[in-house]
């Protein structure tokens, strides 16, 4: 009971902090980092609904990010939507397009498993990138301009920030809903042993496809938001292999298959990444810093930050519970058991 109260208070404090952040910090550089961070929190969380729960490592979700972005950009251009709140109304359309695209992509990619699946998602990603570059209606390499948002310069970032936060709340609620449902349990069963799950009557194919489509929709929506914020969309930016790997890394860093893990991973990594890009003007320094940090985290906490820290706390609790005398011995036992369990 005390844990539950603590959790509710904790969530309330974090939500309140996110809500008041742009009201306290008015520096546009900081609030734009906030927008980018929220976009990636949505993306990592949505990606986790499919890849984290089912164990299928998809490295092609930039397809949905880019498709959502292009859907919103094209809709705004062809339906003559003027800048302002109306463009935010197109975001569900971006999500819908991403979800529709996810159906054939999922049908093809989910015929394969494990590393073959990873590579097929990468290949499909490149097909989309090439198509966006070469097809006529996407504007080719020069891309499409989105309507200019008419918000005042001082508070320009705030609408984007709060809309992204709204999408984030919806995504997290979906993630929690999936995780707690029978559907989520069946996805976890697929992750642990797909053939056995199939043998026990789990309709694996239908489930995997549903999760794949569900994970695509929020990414399509924030894709639209992202490119409206940036003001322009072109292929290299919309279909960026770094996006695929970044969201996977964020989820891994925080803890794959957990609800809070991808959120924490994205919050830490994306804000750090944006901060490093703003601090180091040279992309080389930024790349090296990012790569080294990434390596260090994987090697020190290979199971992700949240499970890793939970494990450390568990050990500490075991040590303090066992009294001062045989503590060291007890600890080594626990460590041994933890090691064996790996």
């Amino acid at each position, binding site marked *: 009971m005390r844990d539950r109260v603590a959790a509710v208070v904790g969530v309330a404090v974090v939500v309140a902090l996110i809500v008041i952040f742009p009201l306290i910090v008015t520096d546009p550089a900081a609030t734009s980092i906030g927008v980018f961070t929220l976009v990636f929190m949505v993306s990592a969380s949505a990606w986790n609904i499919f890849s984290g729960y089912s164990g299928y*490592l998809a*490295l092609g979700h930039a397809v949905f990010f880019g498709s959502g972005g292009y859907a919103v950009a094209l809709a705004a251009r062809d339906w003559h939507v003027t800048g302002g709140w109306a463009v935010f109304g197109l975001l569900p359309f971006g999500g819908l397009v991403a979800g529709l695209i996810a159906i054939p992509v999922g049908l*093809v990619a989910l*015929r*394969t*498993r*494990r*590393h*073959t699946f*990873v*590579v*097929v998602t*990468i*290949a*499909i990603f*490149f*097909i989309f990138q*090439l*198509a966006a*570059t*070469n097809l006529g209606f996407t504007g080719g390499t020069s891309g499409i301009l989105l309507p200019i948002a008419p918000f005042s310069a001082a508070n320009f970032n705030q609408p984007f920030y709060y809309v992204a936060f709204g999408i984030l709340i919806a995504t997290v609620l979906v993630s929690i809903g999936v995780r707690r449902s029978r559907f989520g349990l069946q996805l976890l069963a697929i992750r642990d042993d797909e053939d056995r799950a199939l043998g026990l009557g789990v309709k694996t194919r239908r489930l995997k496809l549903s999760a794949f489509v569900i994970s695509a929709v929020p990414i399509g929506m924030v894709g639209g938001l992202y490119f409206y914020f940036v003001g322009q969309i072109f292929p290299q930016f919309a279909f960026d*292999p770094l996006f695929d*790997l970044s969201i*996977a*890394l964020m989820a*891994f860093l925080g803890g794959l298959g957990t609800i809070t893990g991808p959120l924490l991973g994205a919050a830490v990594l994306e804000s750090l990444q944006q901060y490093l890009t703003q601090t180091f003007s*040279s*992309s*080389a*320094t*930024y*790349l*090296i*810093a*990012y*790569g*080294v940090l*990434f*390596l260090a985290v*994987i*090697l020190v906490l*290979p199971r992700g930050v949240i499970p890793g820290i939970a494990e450390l706390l568990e050990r500490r609790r075991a040590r303090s519970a066992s009294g001062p005398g045989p503590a060291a011995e007890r600890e080594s036992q626990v460590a041994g058991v933890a090691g064996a369990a*790996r």
Partner: protein
Amino acid sequence: MSFTELLQAIVDGILTGGVYALMAAGLTLIFGVMDLINIAQGAMVILGAYLSYVLSVHLGIGLLPGLIITIPVMFALGVAVEFCFMRRLRDRDRTQMSILVTYAVAIVIEGVLTAIFGVDFRQLQASYVNSSVHMLGFYLPDIYLIGFGLAVILLAVLYYGLYRTKFGRAVRASLQNRTAADLIGIDVNRVRTISVGIGVAVTAVGGMVFGATNSFNPNTGYDLISRLLAIVILGGMGSIGGAMAAAVFLLVINDVVAVAWSPTWAPLVYFAALVLVLSIRPQGLFGKSAARAQ
């Protein structure tokens, strides 16, 4: 498109396919022995190209003699990466974790190369880079012939090493069953380290030929790795023969489409062919269906 153009495209595809086969063979060897996917293979090819570039431009050592230096350097890099990072991955999820670890290595390589050389495109130069031989009505660029020749020789050496030597037997044993190999006295860790070293060493040659036939910058590795992965998966992971066949198959398709339709759409057909084949045969052309069982 005339018939001669078609034949020329097929010949070009076979010659470039040989070089891709060599780079992909390194990747598939690492996968076969370690169960690891080396995403950094593309970045390492580009690193190899830059090494050749430094040797030829700043030290006046030609591209071919330079290989005597670049091959051991890349071998050492492979050994270092295996020792520092790959070895630490735990058995469960190691394939997936390896993608992240080696991707981080690729980012670091890209960052270091950007810091030293900037993002300008470069190309390797030598007397044989722009000349060509006119044979049987085809124009065969010398560098393609040299690259193809080197690839064939090295693949032959690799094949001989794997199937006719004691070390090769140890590699294949570790590939089939780690525990059993351990039990009969094979130092599996050593075998793995050396295999990764060899798998990375071939990128020195691949990088030299790639750098002479394409312009490159530190970012080029990503395009390359996606192609190499496509080849390796299509051939069946862990199968060197499969990688060779798939490399030639995909590059012939690529070059024929480039001539027959348009060079901009050629890579799309390349990836579409991959997706199509894998939808029918998820284990690749020559792979065993082990990928499904696990």
